[in-house]
């Protein structure tokens, strides 16, 4: 398995980055955080359908592009770099869950970028063998609430765990109450079902498999998102300290800052290797994927937070203001470190996987 980027991946990155630069500069992202439309659905359609990012991990037999999660992870890097308000994470988790279920009729519109299916689980859910269940099924309807679901506000269809089964529910059949999220660029919602019509996709072990696969894809992509975010913070800070003068010198000429930035670069370099390894494992369905996913989360979460925190500190007062992009990254980084399990949680999981019992 190569840990480098292929030429195809670099081309894909270029396409995504151009669209984001054009349609989601940080000023637009900031403005959207206070609007009634926290997700940019038009941008998402462009990415999903026109550029085809939704199709990447889907085999051709389901209408997909027959690429893999490796390419998808590059998209996640770019979305992280732009803290873009699109429902990619929730959709990717649902896509992988649907793939394990071979749910052809849902996968096809997903791959085409026509419909957005989102996995309705609390964003804070860490690695578990069984899905978190807070909804009960009653025949063909669901009742109950799932709290803190990412991307639910942008979904057409929700995948919901109830009992020991997994269901598809039209998003319009649920009540989605927006949550005031720490990270305003990835809004959470509490999703309530009140005898909502639902279609059962599977039950028993396939359900658990769908959960584990969906969670794992989310964790791996999240690590790449964190990598992209950390890279933005590092690059932006380096550029800033080259131009910001104090005491008649660029502040980037002060060695204490130089060494901290060098250390951050080392950490980001490691994050890149780790995130690439996780993406490669996921793409290859490698037996090491569980280790790679938790390793990537444990490492990249911390790096992204540190990069965002250093970004704020090295920008000084200006980064403490609302009208500067740093806080968008700080809030996303901190939320990402909790999403799909905190680093401490991932380390505990790793301990079990590599035979280092507590």
């Amino acid at each position, binding site marked *: 398995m190569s840990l480098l980027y292929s030429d195809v991946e670099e081309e894909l990155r270029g396409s995504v980055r151009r669209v984001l630069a054009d349609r989601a500069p940080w000023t637009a992202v900031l403005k959207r955080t*206070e609007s009634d439309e926290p997700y940019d659905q038009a941008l998402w359609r462009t990415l999903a359908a026109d550029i085809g990012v939704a199709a990447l991990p889907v085999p051709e037999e389901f209408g997909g592009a027959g690429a893999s999660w490796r390419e998808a992870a590059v998209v996640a890097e770019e979305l992280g770099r732009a803290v873009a308000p699109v429902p990619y994470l929730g959709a990717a988790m649902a896509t992988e869950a649907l793939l394990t279920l071979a749910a052809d009729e849902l996968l096809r519109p997903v791959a085409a970028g026509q419909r957005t299916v989102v996995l309705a689980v*609390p*964003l*804070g859910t860490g690695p578990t063998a069984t899905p978190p269940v807070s909804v009960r099924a009653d025949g063909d309807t669901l009742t109950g609430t799932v*709290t*803190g679901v990412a991307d639910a506000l942008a979904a057409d269809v929700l995948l919901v765990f109830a009992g020991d089964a997994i269901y598809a529910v039209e998003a319009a059949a649920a009540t989605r109450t927006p*949550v*005031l*999220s*720490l*990270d*305003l660029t990835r809004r*959470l919602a509490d999703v309530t079902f009140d005898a909502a019509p639902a279609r059962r996709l599977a039950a028993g072990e396939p359900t658990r498999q769908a959960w584990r696969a969906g969670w794992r894809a989310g964790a791996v992509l999240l690590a790449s998102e964190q990598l992209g975010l950390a890279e933005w913070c590092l690059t932006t800070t380096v550029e800033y300290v080259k131009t910001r*003068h*104090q*005491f*008649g*010198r660029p502040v980037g000429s*002060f060695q*204490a*800052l130089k060494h901290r930035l060098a250390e951050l670069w080392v950490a980001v370099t490691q994050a890149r290797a780790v995130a690439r390894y996780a993406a490669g494992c996921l793409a290859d369905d490698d037996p090491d994927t569980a280790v790679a996913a938790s390793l990537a989360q444990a490492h990249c979460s911390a790096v992204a*937070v540190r990069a965002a*925190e250093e970004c*704020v*500190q090295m920008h*000084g*007062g*200006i*980064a*403490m*203001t*609302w*009208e500067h992009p*740093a*806080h968008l990254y*700080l*809030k996303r980084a*901190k*939320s990402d*470190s*909790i*999403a799909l399990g*905190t*680093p*401490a*949680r991932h*380390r*505990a999981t790793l301990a079990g996987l590599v035979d280092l019992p*507590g």
Partner: protein
Amino acid sequence: MDATELRERVRDFLQRHDPATMDRLEFLRARFDAGLAWISYPEGLGGLGAPRSLQPVVDNEFAAAGAPDNDPMRIAIGLGMAAPTILRHGTDEQRRRWLRPLWTGEEVWCQLFSEPGAGSDLAALGTRAARDGDGWIVNGQKVWTSLAHEARWAILIARTDPALPKHQGITYFVCDMTDPGVEVRPLRQITGEAEFNEVFLSDVRIPDAHRLGEVGEGWRVAQTTLMNERVAIGGGAVPRGAGFIGVVARAWRERPELRTPGQHDALMKLWVSAEAGRLTAQRLREQLATGQPGFEGSAVKYAFARLNQEISGFELELLGEDGLRYDDYTMRRPTGVGWDARSPGYRYLRAKGNSIEGGTSEILSNIIAERVLGLPPEIRVDKDVAWKDLPR
């Protein structure tokens, strides 16, 4: 003047001025005129020339009698920074004009020092004050100004000679905040609220009589202001388990379902750091009380900033899903609600400012390295260059 005599004076004053019946402002003015405001100030300016260490004796007597105070938090900048500067560098007339309403709180003061281009390097400021007859015309932009929207007066430093090296061409003024050229805009922070302001100065007219100290001496005058700021940041006595650590300890105790073995040691590391920081502040106060120099103040502020950031970061991860939520991002002026009443996310975001405001942690590190440890100073490229020729 000893404590007994002071107590006597206060009681005597209180016999003649009943705080229960007297108008608050009249009471405060009378207290000032009796020299019982800030007793270390000279007679006639609210004081008695008494030792500063005896101030608590007076304050406690007044408090015990249920007397009104001058709401010191609201006028902190006036009391802590403007007043000592006016006292030291002002003319008799300036002192008489400004100190009384400053102390009584009739006139709120703010500080127009920092600029977008001059943060850590305050002396690089670019706000211009140009001579105009018997006054000055001021143009520029200041930032991070607390209380600007309530202030009647501001202490202001501005550049009066750009052809001199940066420390030499600065003059210190008192600026009338009601001047039509003064525009105050709230500065919204990443927490959503606006504690501070930006202040835009457009052809603001300041009479020369409102200059503090000589022309070109503003940097030296500002040292009095800044020294008093640093003293204020020492940190008061707090019991064990107060502050951020108390909040997270409470969460830990009350929500056992959140606990994990790995986070337990992390919590205890923070607890140890918090307690070490608390004892260090306590030792610093003892040192200051005995008149020993207290560079430990820099250590206290430096450690305090990092600790708050670490604890609040930990708190969010401990809370997990709850840590993904915020309480209120609407733009508003803080209303005295403390950080402990806000959400963990607020603490996390607000604490990021602790290592920037009032001297960045980097500047504190320089001060410690150079003034305490005697390490060589940074190589300075800006000392002898005309301000206007500095790269920026």
